[in-house]
């Protein structure tokens, strides 16, 4: 695994750990109920997927394969474009429905989380379209 990717993973997981620890210390387990539980579950699932992907790439690197080539770059560009367009509409709807959210933090946090989900979904769609 490239050193900078390893470092990035460590930083991401340390940050997640510190934030989670801070929340638990200040709010106990009250935070992990209802909608919050769903949000935390999505974040953790995203983290696990990122971790698995990183290790898969590490394995490929050890086998002497490149981790980025012209097809993966094309998939990244296409899915990035779709995710960007979908995110723009999502933010538009979020601002139109801003009164439905309990507070600004929930609105922004939810928006960021859905943006990440859209990026994941668009990558999946681009790969599926390529397979058809």
């Amino acid at each position, binding site marked *: 695994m490239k050193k900078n990717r390893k470092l990035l993973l460590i930083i991401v997981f340390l940050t997640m750990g510190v934030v989670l620890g801070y929340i638990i210390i200040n709010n106990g387990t009250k935070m992990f109920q209802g909608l919050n539980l769903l949000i935390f579950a999505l974040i953790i699932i995203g983290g696990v997927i990122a971790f698995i992907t990183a290790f898969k790439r590490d394995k490929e690197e050890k086998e002497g394969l490149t981790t980025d080539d012209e*097809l993966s770059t094309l998939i990244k560009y296409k899915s990035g474009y779709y995710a960007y367009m979908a995110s723009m509409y999502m933010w538009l709807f979020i601002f139109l429905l801003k009164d439905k959210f309990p507070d600004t933090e929930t609105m922004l946090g939810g928006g960021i989380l859905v943006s990440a989900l859209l990026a994941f979904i668009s990558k999946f769609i681009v790969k599926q379209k390529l397979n058809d």
Partner: protein
Amino acid sequence: MTNRIKELRARENLTQLDLAKLVDVRRETIVFLEKGKYNPSLKLAYDISKIFKSKIEEVFIFDNE
């Protein structure tokens, strides 16, 4: 565009992984190429043809349809 990668790879006794390593792409790219789901760049087409010691037009068959 169709191609003869699978056939030529079998002739040279190469696995998809071997070919991917030789032309510096991911194995997934070779899979998509063989299925005809992806048209390679001129550089990749050239690199693959070089591995099989053939001309580009012998490996990749262009049709107008």
